[in-house]
Protein backbone atom coordinates (compact mmCIF):
# COMPACT_ATOMS: atom_id res chain seq x y z
CA UNK A 1 0.00 0.00 0.00
CA UNK A 2 1.51 3.28 -1.10
CA UNK A 3 -0.47 5.34 1.43
CA UNK A 4 2.29 5.04 4.04
CA UNK A 5 4.97 6.10 1.50
CA UNK A 6 2.90 9.10 0.44
CA UNK A 7 2.04 10.00 4.04
CA UNK A 8 5.74 9.89 4.97
CA UNK A 9 6.51 12.27 2.11
CA UNK A 10 3.67 14.61 3.10
CA UNK A 11 4.77 14.75 6.74
CA UNK A 12 8.37 15.44 5.73
CA UNK A 13 7.10 18.16 3.40
CA UNK A 14 5.07 19.73 6.22
CA UNK A 15 8.24 19.82 8.31
CA UNK A 16 10.80 20.80 5.65
CA UNK A 17 8.70 23.57 4.10
CA UNK A 18 8.00 25.01 7.59
CA UNK A 19 4.24 24.53 7.30
CA UNK A 20 4.05 22.52 10.52
CA UNK A 21 6.31 24.98 12.32
CA UNK A 22 4.45 27.99 10.95
CA UNK A 23 1.03 26.71 11.93
CA UNK A 24 2.19 25.55 15.37
CA UNK A 25 3.92 28.86 16.12
CA UNK A 26 0.93 30.90 14.95
CA UNK A 27 -1.51 28.81 16.99
CA UNK A 28 0.67 28.88 20.11
CA UNK A 29 1.45 32.61 19.84
CA UNK A 30 -1.87 34.08 18.72
CA UNK A 31 -4.26 31.68 20.42
CA UNK A 32 -2.32 29.83 23.12
CA UNK A 33 -0.27 32.62 24.71
CA UNK A 34 -2.01 35.82 23.68
CA UNK A 35 -5.54 34.83 24.73
CA UNK A 36 -5.01 34.61 28.54
CA UNK A 37 -2.92 37.81 28.43
CA UNK A 38 -5.59 39.71 26.49
CA UNK A 39 -8.28 38.43 28.88
CA UNK A 40 -6.17 39.57 31.85
CA UNK A 41 -5.22 43.07 30.67
CA UNK A 42 -8.34 44.12 28.73
CA UNK A 43 -10.24 45.37 31.82
CA UNK A 44 -7.12 47.31 32.90
CA UNK A 45 -6.82 48.92 29.47
CA UNK A 46 -10.50 49.87 29.38
CA UNK A 47 -10.55 51.18 32.93
CA UNK A 48 -9.29 54.66 31.99
CA UNK A 49 -9.99 55.13 28.32
CA UNK A 50 -9.02 58.61 26.99
CA UNK A 51 -11.75 60.38 24.95
CA UNK A 52 -9.45 62.72 23.00
CA UNK A 53 -10.87 65.86 24.78
CA UNK A 54 -8.54 65.57 27.73
CA UNK A 55 -11.13 63.67 29.77
CA UNK A 56 -11.30 59.98 30.48
CA UNK A 57 -14.22 57.54 30.40
CA UNK A 58 -14.22 55.04 33.22
CA UNK A 59 -15.51 51.61 32.17
CA UNK A 60 -15.90 49.20 35.03
CA UNK A 61 -15.58 45.54 33.99
CA UNK A 62 -15.89 42.57 36.30
CA UNK A 63 -12.65 40.92 37.46
CA UNK A 64 -11.40 38.69 34.56
CA UNK A 65 -11.52 34.93 35.11
CA UNK A 66 -10.23 31.78 33.42
CA UNK A 67 -13.54 31.59 31.53
CA UNK A 68 -12.66 34.89 29.82
CA UNK A 69 -9.29 33.44 28.86
CA UNK A 70 -10.97 30.39 27.29
CA UNK A 71 -13.54 32.55 25.49
CA UNK A 72 -10.70 34.68 24.08
CA UNK A 73 -8.81 31.52 23.09
CA UNK A 74 -11.82 30.15 21.20
CA UNK A 75 -12.36 33.51 19.50
CA UNK A 76 -8.74 33.70 18.36
CA UNK A 77 -8.90 30.15 17.01
CA UNK A 78 -11.97 30.92 14.93
CA UNK A 79 -10.39 34.04 13.43
CA UNK A 80 -6.58 33.92 13.27
CA UNK A 81 -6.63 30.12 13.41
CA UNK A 82 -8.89 29.83 10.37
CA UNK A 83 -6.73 32.23 8.32
CA UNK A 84 -3.53 30.35 9.18
CA UNK A 85 -5.21 27.02 8.42
CA UNK A 86 -6.42 28.20 5.00
CA UNK A 87 -2.97 29.58 4.15
CA UNK A 88 -1.31 26.26 5.01
CA UNK A 89 -3.89 23.99 3.34
CA UNK A 90 -4.92 25.94 0.22
CA UNK A 91 -1.99 24.72 -1.90
CA UNK A 92 -2.03 21.10 -0.84
CA UNK A 93 -3.47 19.75 -4.12
CA UNK A 94 -3.77 22.94 -6.21
CA UNK A 95 -0.06 23.73 -5.96
CA UNK A 96 0.89 20.20 -7.02
CA UNK A 97 -1.36 20.58 -10.06
CA UNK A 98 0.03 24.02 -10.83
CA UNK A 99 3.65 22.83 -10.61
CA UNK A 100 3.02 19.50 -12.34
CA UNK A 101 4.28 17.29 -9.49
CA UNK A 102 0.87 15.62 -9.38
CA UNK A 103 1.65 14.11 -12.82
CA UNK A 104 5.05 12.92 -11.57
CA UNK A 105 3.42 11.01 -8.71
CA UNK A 106 0.23 9.79 -10.39
CA UNK A 107 2.07 8.30 -13.37
CA UNK A 108 3.42 5.78 -10.82
CA UNK A 109 1.36 2.89 -9.39
CA UNK A 110 -0.45 5.21 -7.00
CA UNK A 111 -4.21 5.52 -6.66
CA UNK A 112 -5.70 8.97 -6.61
CA UNK A 113 -7.50 8.06 -3.40
CA UNK A 114 -4.17 7.29 -1.66
CA UNK A 115 -2.74 10.54 -2.98
CA UNK A 116 -5.61 12.54 -1.48
CA UNK A 117 -5.83 10.57 1.75
CA UNK A 118 -2.14 11.04 2.49
CA UNK A 119 -2.49 14.77 2.05
CA UNK A 120 -5.59 15.08 4.24
CA UNK A 121 -4.15 12.89 7.00
CA UNK A 122 -0.90 14.90 7.00
CA UNK A 123 -2.83 18.18 7.23
CA UNK A 124 -5.01 16.76 10.02
CA UNK A 125 -1.92 15.69 11.97
CA UNK A 126 -0.36 19.14 11.46
CA UNK A 127 -3.55 20.77 12.74
CA UNK A 128 -3.76 18.35 15.67
CA UNK A 129 -0.14 18.96 16.70
CA UNK A 130 -0.62 22.73 16.49
CA UNK A 131 -3.83 22.57 18.53
CA UNK A 132 -2.30 20.36 21.21
CA UNK A 133 0.59 22.79 21.63
CA UNK A 134 -1.72 25.83 21.61
CA UNK A 135 -4.08 24.24 24.13
CA UNK A 136 -1.20 23.31 26.42
CA UNK A 137 0.21 26.84 26.16
CA UNK A 138 -3.18 28.42 26.83
CA UNK A 139 -3.99 26.13 29.77
CA UNK A 140 -0.56 26.72 31.35
CA UNK A 141 -0.84 30.50 30.97
CA UNK A 142 -4.43 30.50 32.21
CA UNK A 143 -3.42 28.60 35.35
CA UNK A 144 -0.48 30.96 35.89
CA UNK A 145 -2.55 34.14 35.46
CA UNK A 146 -5.91 33.08 36.89
CA UNK A 147 -5.23 30.12 39.16
CA UNK A 148 -6.21 26.46 38.90
CA UNK A 149 -8.76 25.45 36.26
CA UNK A 150 -10.30 22.07 35.41
CA UNK A 151 -8.09 20.58 32.66
CA UNK A 152 -10.91 18.21 31.63
CA UNK A 153 -13.17 21.12 30.71
CA UNK A 154 -10.29 22.70 28.82
CA UNK A 155 -9.68 19.51 26.84
CA UNK A 156 -13.38 19.07 25.95
CA UNK A 157 -13.68 22.70 24.85
CA UNK A 158 -10.53 22.26 22.75
CA UNK A 159 -11.91 19.13 21.11
CA UNK A 160 -15.00 21.05 20.01
CA UNK A 161 -12.84 23.83 18.60
CA UNK A 162 -10.67 21.19 16.90
CA UNK A 163 -13.74 19.80 15.15
CA UNK A 164 -14.67 23.35 14.08
CA UNK A 165 -11.23 23.84 12.52
CA UNK A 166 -11.28 20.35 10.98
CA UNK A 167 -14.47 21.25 9.10
CA UNK A 168 -12.76 24.24 7.50
CA UNK A 169 -9.64 22.19 6.87
CA UNK A 170 -11.82 19.76 4.86
CA UNK A 171 -13.48 22.69 3.06
CA UNK A 172 -10.08 24.18 2.13
CA UNK A 173 -8.88 20.74 1.04
CA UNK A 174 -11.92 20.37 -1.22
CA UNK A 175 -11.34 23.85 -2.68
CA UNK A 176 -7.70 22.96 -3.32
CA UNK A 177 -8.88 19.92 -5.28
CA UNK A 178 -11.46 21.89 -7.26
CA UNK A 179 -9.28 24.82 -8.33
CA UNK A 180 -6.19 25.18 -10.50
CA UNK A 181 -4.12 27.30 -8.12
CA UNK A 182 -3.59 27.96 -4.40
CA UNK A 183 -4.82 31.55 -4.54
CA UNK A 184 -8.14 30.52 -6.08
CA UNK A 185 -8.42 27.73 -3.49
CA UNK A 186 -7.76 30.18 -0.65
CA UNK A 187 -10.25 32.72 -1.98
CA UNK A 188 -12.96 30.10 -2.40
CA UNK A 189 -12.31 28.77 1.10
CA UNK A 190 -12.64 32.22 2.65
CA UNK A 191 -15.84 32.76 0.67
CA UNK A 192 -17.33 29.51 2.00
CA UNK A 193 -16.19 30.43 5.54
CA UNK A 194 -17.98 33.79 5.25
CA UNK A 195 -21.11 32.12 3.85
CA UNK A 196 -21.24 29.52 6.64
CA UNK A 197 -20.72 32.27 9.22
CA UNK A 198 -23.65 34.20 7.72
CA UNK A 199 -25.84 31.08 7.80
CA UNK A 200 -25.27 30.98 11.57
CA UNK A 201 -27.36 34.11 11.90
CA UNK A 202 -30.51 32.24 10.84
CA UNK A 203 -32.05 30.95 14.12
CA UNK A 204 -33.32 27.66 12.67
CA UNK A 205 -29.95 26.81 11.13
CA UNK A 206 -27.79 28.13 13.96
CA UNK A 207 -27.65 24.88 16.04
CA UNK A 208 -26.32 22.98 13.02
CA UNK A 209 -23.49 25.24 11.78
CA UNK A 210 -19.87 24.76 12.94
CA UNK A 211 -20.03 28.04 14.92
CA UNK A 212 -22.38 26.22 17.32
CA UNK A 213 -19.38 24.10 18.31
CA UNK A 214 -17.57 27.19 19.58
CA UNK A 215 -20.67 28.34 21.47
CA UNK A 216 -20.87 24.86 23.00
CA UNK A 217 -17.21 25.06 24.00
CA UNK A 218 -17.85 28.42 25.70
CA UNK A 219 -20.81 26.93 27.58
CA UNK A 220 -18.54 24.10 28.75
CA UNK A 221 -16.09 26.65 30.12
CA UNK A 222 -18.96 28.27 32.03
CA UNK A 223 -19.76 24.91 33.61
CA UNK A 224 -22.88 24.35 31.51
CA UNK A 225 -23.79 21.57 29.08
CA UNK A 226 -22.25 21.97 25.62
CA UNK A 227 -25.50 21.12 23.82
CA UNK A 228 -23.59 20.74 20.55
CA UNK A 229 -24.79 17.30 19.43
CA UNK A 230 -26.43 18.59 16.24
CA UNK A 231 -23.42 20.70 15.32
CA UNK A 232 -21.08 17.75 15.94
CA UNK A 233 -23.19 15.54 13.67
CA UNK A 234 -23.43 18.06 10.83
CA UNK A 235 -19.73 18.89 11.13
CA UNK A 236 -18.70 15.24 10.82
CA UNK A 237 -21.07 14.83 7.86
CA UNK A 238 -19.61 18.01 6.29
CA UNK A 239 -16.04 16.67 6.62
CA UNK A 240 -17.06 13.35 5.07
CA UNK A 241 -18.97 15.10 2.28
CA UNK A 242 -15.96 17.32 1.48
CA UNK A 243 -13.67 14.28 1.28
CA UNK A 244 -16.08 12.30 -0.92
CA UNK A 245 -16.60 15.28 -3.24
CA UNK A 246 -12.85 15.93 -3.40
CA UNK A 247 -12.20 12.31 -4.37
CA UNK A 248 -15.04 12.23 -6.89
CA UNK A 249 -13.87 15.35 -8.72
CA UNK A 250 -10.19 14.39 -8.55
CA UNK A 251 -10.87 10.92 -10.00
CA UNK A 252 -12.58 12.49 -13.00
CA UNK A 253 -9.96 15.18 -13.55
CA UNK A 254 -7.69 15.04 -16.61
CA UNK A 255 -4.08 15.68 -15.67
Amino acid at each position, binding site marked *: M*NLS*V*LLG*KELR*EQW*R*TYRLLGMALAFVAFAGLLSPIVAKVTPELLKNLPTGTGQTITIELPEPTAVDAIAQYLKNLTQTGIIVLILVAMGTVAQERE*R*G*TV*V*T*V*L*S*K*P*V*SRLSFLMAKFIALTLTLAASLVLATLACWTYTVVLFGPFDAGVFVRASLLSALYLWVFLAVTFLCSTLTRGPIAAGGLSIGIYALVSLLGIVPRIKPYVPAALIEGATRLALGESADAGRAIATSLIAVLACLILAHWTFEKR*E*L
Partner: protein
Amino acid sequence: MTAILCEDLTKHYGTVVGLQSLDLSVPDGAVFGFLGPNGAGKTTTIKLLTGLSRPTSGRASVAGYDVTAGNAEMRARIGYLAEEPAFYGWMTGEEFLTFVGRLFGLRGGDLARRVREVLEVADLGPAARRRIGGYSRGMRQRLGIAHALINQPSVLLLDEPCSALDPMGRKEVLEVIEHLRGQTTVFMSTHILADVERVCDTVGIIDHGKIVAQASIEALRERYAVPVFVIEFEAAPEQMSVLANHLQRQPWVASAEASEGRLRLYARDLAYARQTLPPLVIASGMTLLHYELTAPSLEDVFVHLTSASALTSASALTSASSEMSDAAEARQ
Protein backbone atom coordinates in the same frame (compact mmCIF):
# COMPACT_ATOMS: atom_id res chain seq x y z
CA MET B 1 5.62 -8.85 -29.16
CA THR B 2 4.06 -5.41 -29.35
CA ALA B 3 5.12 -2.99 -26.61
CA ILE B 4 2.59 -0.28 -27.46
CA LEU B 5 -0.64 -0.71 -29.36
CA CYS B 6 -3.19 1.99 -30.14
CA GLU B 7 -6.41 1.17 -31.93
CA ASP B 8 -8.66 3.94 -33.20
CA LEU B 9 -7.50 6.08 -30.28
CA THR B 10 -9.35 9.39 -30.31
CA LYS B 11 -9.28 12.34 -27.95
CA HIS B 12 -11.44 15.43 -28.23
CA TYR B 13 -11.18 18.47 -25.94
CA GLY B 14 -14.63 19.93 -26.44
CA THR B 15 -14.70 20.83 -30.12
CA VAL B 16 -10.91 20.62 -30.48
CA VAL B 17 -9.57 17.37 -31.90
CA GLY B 18 -6.46 16.35 -29.96
CA LEU B 19 -6.12 12.95 -31.57
CA GLN B 20 -8.09 11.34 -34.40
CA SER B 21 -8.36 7.56 -34.82
CA LEU B 22 -4.73 6.85 -34.01
CA ASP B 23 -3.55 3.37 -34.95
CA LEU B 24 -0.03 2.69 -33.80
CA SER B 25 2.06 -0.36 -33.13
CA VAL B 26 5.49 -0.20 -31.52
CA PRO B 27 7.48 -3.45 -31.45
CA ASP B 28 9.18 -4.65 -28.31
CA GLY B 29 12.73 -3.32 -27.92
CA ALA B 30 12.37 -0.48 -30.42
CA VAL B 31 13.66 3.03 -29.87
CA PHE B 32 10.64 4.69 -31.42
CA GLY B 33 10.63 8.34 -32.43
CA PHE B 34 7.17 9.88 -32.33
CA LEU B 35 7.62 12.80 -34.62
CA GLY B 36 5.37 15.73 -35.32
CA PRO B 37 5.16 19.50 -35.37
CA ASN B 38 4.05 21.41 -32.26
CA GLY B 39 0.39 20.77 -31.50
CA ALA B 40 0.25 17.61 -33.61
CA GLY B 41 -1.01 15.42 -30.73
CA LYS B 42 2.23 13.95 -29.35
CA THR B 43 1.70 14.91 -25.69
CA THR B 44 -1.98 13.93 -25.91
CA THR B 45 -0.96 10.45 -27.09
CA ILE B 46 1.58 10.03 -24.30
CA LYS B 47 -0.87 11.22 -21.63
CA LEU B 48 -3.37 8.67 -22.89
CA LEU B 49 -0.71 5.96 -22.82
CA THR B 50 0.18 6.76 -19.19
CA GLY B 51 -3.47 6.72 -18.13
CA LEU B 52 -3.30 10.36 -16.99
CA SER B 53 -5.93 11.23 -19.57
CA ARG B 54 -8.93 9.24 -20.81
CA PRO B 55 -9.65 8.69 -24.51
CA THR B 56 -12.89 9.84 -26.08
CA SER B 57 -12.96 6.52 -27.95
CA GLY B 58 -10.67 3.68 -28.98
CA ARG B 59 -8.26 1.71 -26.86
CA ALA B 60 -4.56 1.41 -26.11
CA SER B 61 -2.29 -1.07 -24.38
CA VAL B 62 1.24 -0.74 -23.06
CA ALA B 63 3.39 -3.74 -22.10
CA GLY B 64 0.33 -5.93 -22.64
CA TYR B 65 -1.88 -4.00 -20.19
CA ASP B 66 -4.93 -2.00 -21.13
CA VAL B 67 -4.28 1.65 -20.32
CA THR B 68 -7.64 3.21 -20.94
CA ALA B 69 -8.62 2.51 -17.33
CA GLY B 70 -5.26 3.89 -16.13
CA ASN B 71 -4.60 0.77 -14.10
CA ALA B 72 -1.79 0.53 -11.55
CA GLU B 73 -0.43 -2.77 -12.94
CA MET B 74 0.36 -1.06 -16.23
CA ARG B 75 1.94 1.93 -14.50
CA ALA B 76 4.18 -0.41 -12.49
CA ARG B 77 5.73 -1.48 -15.80
CA ILE B 78 6.29 1.87 -17.46
CA GLY B 79 8.59 4.81 -16.97
CA TYR B 80 7.36 8.28 -17.91
CA LEU B 81 9.16 11.56 -18.35
CA ALA B 82 6.92 14.59 -18.89
CA GLU B 83 7.90 17.39 -21.27
CA GLU B 84 8.62 19.64 -18.30
CA PRO B 85 9.24 17.22 -15.45
CA ALA B 86 8.29 18.58 -12.04
CA PHE B 87 9.94 17.59 -8.78
CA TYR B 88 9.78 18.50 -5.12
CA GLY B 89 12.42 21.21 -4.84
CA TRP B 90 12.84 20.66 -1.10
CA MET B 91 14.04 17.07 -1.64
CA THR B 92 17.56 16.08 -2.63
CA GLY B 93 17.97 14.05 -5.83
CA GLU B 94 18.66 10.93 -3.80
CA GLU B 95 15.62 11.46 -1.56
CA PHE B 96 13.39 11.94 -4.59
CA LEU B 97 14.61 8.75 -6.27
CA THR B 98 14.20 6.85 -3.00
CA PHE B 99 10.64 8.18 -2.71
CA VAL B 100 9.81 7.12 -6.28
CA GLY B 101 11.46 3.72 -5.74
CA ARG B 102 9.25 3.17 -2.69
CA LEU B 103 6.16 3.99 -4.78
CA PHE B 104 7.20 1.09 -7.02
CA GLY B 105 7.47 -1.19 -3.99
CA LEU B 106 11.28 -1.25 -3.71
CA ARG B 107 12.62 -1.47 -0.15
CA GLY B 108 15.88 -1.85 1.78
CA GLY B 109 19.03 -2.94 -0.03
CA ASP B 110 17.29 -3.33 -3.42
CA LEU B 111 16.07 0.25 -3.24
CA ALA B 112 19.47 1.68 -2.23
CA ARG B 113 21.21 -0.30 -5.00
CA ARG B 114 18.71 0.77 -7.66
CA VAL B 115 18.95 4.44 -6.60
CA ARG B 116 22.76 4.25 -6.94
CA GLU B 117 22.42 2.63 -10.38
CA VAL B 118 20.07 5.22 -11.85
CA LEU B 119 22.09 8.06 -10.35
CA GLU B 120 25.08 6.63 -12.20
CA VAL B 121 23.17 6.21 -15.48
CA ALA B 122 22.04 9.84 -15.27
CA ASP B 123 25.50 10.98 -14.14
CA LEU B 124 24.06 12.65 -11.06
CA GLY B 125 26.19 10.97 -8.39
CA PRO B 126 28.01 14.11 -7.18
CA ALA B 127 24.73 16.09 -7.01
CA ALA B 128 22.72 13.33 -5.32
CA ARG B 129 22.65 15.04 -1.94
CA ARG B 130 21.94 18.51 -3.23
CA ARG B 131 18.43 19.99 -3.16
CA ILE B 132 16.63 19.60 -6.50
CA GLY B 133 15.64 23.27 -6.27
CA GLY B 134 19.27 24.11 -7.08
CA TYR B 135 19.61 21.79 -10.10
CA SER B 136 20.21 23.13 -13.62
CA ARG B 137 17.68 22.34 -16.37
CA GLY B 138 19.89 19.61 -17.81
CA MET B 139 20.33 18.03 -14.38
CA ARG B 140 16.57 18.11 -13.83
CA GLN B 141 16.00 16.41 -17.17
CA ARG B 142 18.55 13.72 -16.31
CA LEU B 143 16.93 13.31 -12.88
CA GLY B 144 13.64 12.89 -14.76
CA ILE B 145 15.12 10.09 -16.84
CA ALA B 146 16.66 8.51 -13.71
CA HIS B 147 13.29 8.50 -11.93
CA ALA B 148 11.59 7.04 -15.02
CA LEU B 149 14.10 4.17 -15.01
CA ILE B 150 14.00 3.28 -11.32
CA ASN B 151 11.51 0.42 -11.80
CA GLN B 152 13.42 -1.02 -14.79
CA PRO B 153 10.39 -0.36 -17.01
CA SER B 154 9.37 -2.52 -19.94
CA VAL B 155 8.36 0.64 -21.79
CA LEU B 156 9.84 4.10 -21.33
CA LEU B 157 7.67 7.02 -22.48
CA LEU B 158 9.62 10.24 -23.02
CA ASP B 159 7.78 13.42 -23.97
CA GLU B 160 10.10 15.84 -25.77
CA PRO B 161 13.08 14.85 -23.60
CA CYS B 162 15.48 17.33 -25.24
CA SER B 163 13.33 20.24 -26.35
CA ALA B 164 14.26 22.61 -23.52
CA LEU B 165 17.95 21.76 -23.33
CA ASP B 166 21.10 23.43 -24.58
CA PRO B 167 23.34 21.43 -26.97
CA MET B 168 25.38 19.91 -24.13
CA GLY B 169 22.26 18.95 -22.17
CA ARG B 170 20.76 17.41 -25.33
CA LYS B 171 23.90 15.41 -25.96
CA GLU B 172 23.88 14.06 -22.41
CA VAL B 173 20.22 13.04 -22.53
CA LEU B 174 20.57 11.39 -25.96
CA GLU B 175 23.55 9.43 -24.67
CA VAL B 176 21.43 8.11 -21.83
CA ILE B 177 18.72 7.08 -24.33
CA GLU B 178 21.28 5.38 -26.57
CA HIS B 179 22.56 3.54 -23.54
CA LEU B 180 19.07 2.06 -23.04
CA ARG B 181 18.93 0.45 -26.48
CA GLY B 182 18.28 -3.26 -26.09
CA GLN B 183 17.27 -2.92 -22.42
CA THR B 184 13.81 -1.41 -22.79
CA THR B 185 11.35 -0.15 -25.39
CA VAL B 186 11.71 3.61 -25.72
CA PHE B 187 8.85 5.74 -27.07
CA MET B 188 10.16 9.25 -27.54
CA SER B 189 8.10 12.15 -28.80
CA THR B 190 9.96 15.03 -30.36
CA HIS B 191 9.91 17.64 -33.08
CA ILE B 192 13.73 17.66 -33.31
CA LEU B 193 14.58 15.58 -36.36
CA ALA B 194 18.30 15.38 -35.61
CA ASP B 195 17.54 13.67 -32.29
CA VAL B 196 15.37 11.07 -34.01
CA GLU B 197 18.02 10.36 -36.65
CA ARG B 198 20.61 9.94 -33.94
CA VAL B 199 18.88 7.54 -31.54
CA CYS B 200 15.70 6.09 -33.06
CA ASP B 201 15.39 3.05 -35.28
CA THR B 202 11.68 3.43 -36.07
CA VAL B 203 9.54 6.52 -36.40
CA GLY B 204 5.89 7.42 -36.49
CA ILE B 205 4.95 10.78 -37.97
CA ILE B 206 1.86 12.47 -36.59
CA ASP B 207 0.20 15.59 -37.91
CA HIS B 208 -3.05 17.25 -36.90
CA GLY B 209 -3.86 14.34 -34.58
CA LYS B 210 -3.41 11.66 -37.25
CA ILE B 211 -0.59 9.23 -37.99
CA VAL B 212 0.67 9.91 -41.52
CA ALA B 213 3.44 7.31 -41.62
CA GLN B 214 5.15 4.69 -39.52
CA ALA B 215 8.28 2.81 -40.53
CA SER B 216 12.03 2.57 -40.08
CA ILE B 217 13.95 5.74 -40.97
CA GLU B 218 15.54 4.02 -43.99
CA ALA B 219 12.19 2.77 -45.25
CA LEU B 220 10.70 6.23 -44.94
CA ARG B 221 13.58 7.78 -46.83
CA GLU B 222 13.27 5.25 -49.63
CA ARG B 223 9.52 5.45 -49.84
CA TYR B 224 8.72 9.11 -49.38
CA ALA B 225 11.69 11.35 -49.85
CA VAL B 226 12.03 13.13 -53.15
CA PRO B 227 15.68 13.66 -54.22
CA VAL B 228 16.62 17.27 -53.68
CA PHE B 229 19.00 19.53 -55.60
CA VAL B 230 20.96 21.85 -53.30
CA ILE B 231 22.55 24.78 -55.11
CA GLU B 232 24.60 27.54 -53.45
CA PHE B 233 25.36 30.89 -55.10
CA GLU B 234 27.35 33.96 -54.30
CA ALA B 235 24.52 36.35 -55.10
CA ALA B 236 21.99 38.75 -53.66
CA PRO B 237 18.87 37.14 -52.14
CA GLU B 238 16.68 39.01 -54.65
CA GLN B 239 18.51 37.41 -57.60
CA MET B 240 18.09 33.97 -56.04
CA SER B 241 14.39 34.58 -55.44
CA VAL B 242 13.94 35.48 -59.12
CA LEU B 243 15.56 32.19 -60.14
CA ALA B 244 13.54 30.21 -57.58
CA ASN B 245 10.29 31.75 -58.86
CA HIS B 246 11.24 30.97 -62.44
CA LEU B 247 12.04 27.36 -61.60
CA GLN B 248 8.88 26.98 -59.56
CA ARG B 249 6.84 27.60 -62.74
CA GLN B 250 8.50 24.71 -64.61
CA PRO B 251 6.30 21.61 -64.93
CA TRP B 252 9.12 19.24 -63.92
CA VAL B 253 9.69 21.09 -60.59
CA ALA B 254 7.70 20.14 -57.50
CA SER B 255 9.02 23.02 -55.44
CA ALA B 256 11.92 25.46 -55.37
CA GLU B 257 12.80 27.75 -52.51
CA ALA B 258 15.71 30.07 -51.81
CA SER B 259 17.00 31.00 -48.39
CA GLU B 260 20.35 31.94 -46.83
CA GLY B 261 22.25 31.74 -50.13
CA ARG B 262 20.97 28.26 -50.84
CA LEU B 263 18.36 27.05 -53.31
CA ARG B 264 16.57 23.75 -52.67
CA LEU B 265 14.72 22.19 -55.57
CA TYR B 266 12.47 19.12 -55.45
CA ALA B 267 11.98 17.61 -58.89
CA ARG B 268 8.90 15.81 -60.21
CA ASP B 269 10.91 14.30 -63.05
CA LEU B 270 14.40 13.55 -61.79
CA ALA B 271 15.87 12.45 -65.13
CA TYR B 272 14.60 15.56 -66.89
CA ALA B 273 15.78 17.80 -64.04
CA ARG B 274 19.31 16.36 -64.24
CA GLN B 275 19.54 17.45 -67.87
CA THR B 276 17.65 20.73 -67.73
CA LEU B 277 18.72 22.30 -64.46
CA PRO B 278 22.49 22.89 -65.05
CA PRO B 279 21.98 25.08 -68.16
CA LEU B 280 19.37 27.14 -66.31
CA VAL B 281 21.75 27.63 -63.38
CA ILE B 282 24.53 28.79 -65.70
CA ALA B 283 22.13 31.07 -67.60
CA SER B 284 21.19 32.80 -64.34
CA GLY B 285 24.58 34.55 -64.40
CA MET B 286 25.17 34.10 -60.65
CA THR B 287 28.46 32.73 -59.29
CA LEU B 288 27.96 29.06 -58.52
CA LEU B 289 29.54 27.80 -55.27
CA HIS B 290 28.01 24.38 -54.84
CA TYR B 291 25.75 22.03 -56.83
CA GLU B 292 24.57 18.73 -55.38
CA LEU B 293 21.86 16.15 -55.77
CA THR B 294 21.51 15.01 -52.15
CA ALA B 295 20.22 11.89 -50.53
CA PRO B 296 16.93 12.68 -48.81
CA SER B 297 17.11 13.50 -45.12
CA LEU B 298 14.49 12.71 -42.51
CA GLU B 299 13.68 16.41 -42.56
CA ASP B 300 12.74 16.11 -46.24
CA VAL B 301 10.44 13.19 -45.40
CA PHE B 302 8.96 15.07 -42.49
CA VAL B 303 8.31 18.20 -44.53
CA HIS B 304 6.84 16.11 -47.31
CA LEU B 305 4.50 14.17 -45.03
CA THR B 306 3.33 17.05 -42.87
CA SER B 307 2.66 19.39 -45.77
CA ALA B 308 -0.89 20.00 -46.90
CA SER B 309 -0.40 18.03 -50.09
CA ALA B 310 0.71 15.03 -48.12
CA LEU B 311 -2.41 15.22 -46.02
CA THR B 312 -4.66 15.02 -49.04
CA SER B 313 -3.09 11.71 -49.90
CA ALA B 314 -3.17 10.49 -46.33
CA SER B 315 -5.15 7.40 -47.16
CA ALA B 316 -2.51 6.21 -49.61
CA LEU B 317 0.22 6.85 -47.08
CA THR B 318 -1.59 5.04 -44.31
CA SER B 319 -1.95 1.91 -46.38
CA ALA B 320 1.69 2.12 -47.34
CA SER B 321 2.72 2.70 -43.73
CA SER B 322 1.24 -0.58 -42.54
CA GLU B 323 3.26 -2.33 -45.22
CA MET B 324 6.40 -0.65 -43.98
CA SER B 325 5.50 -1.29 -40.37
CA ASP B 326 5.66 -4.99 -41.14
CA ALA B 327 9.03 -4.49 -42.74
CA ALA B 328 10.27 -2.59 -39.70
CA GLU B 329 9.07 -5.32 -37.37
CA ALA B 330 10.84 -7.91 -39.49
CA ARG B 331 14.01 -5.80 -39.12
CA GLN B 332 13.68 -5.94 -35.33
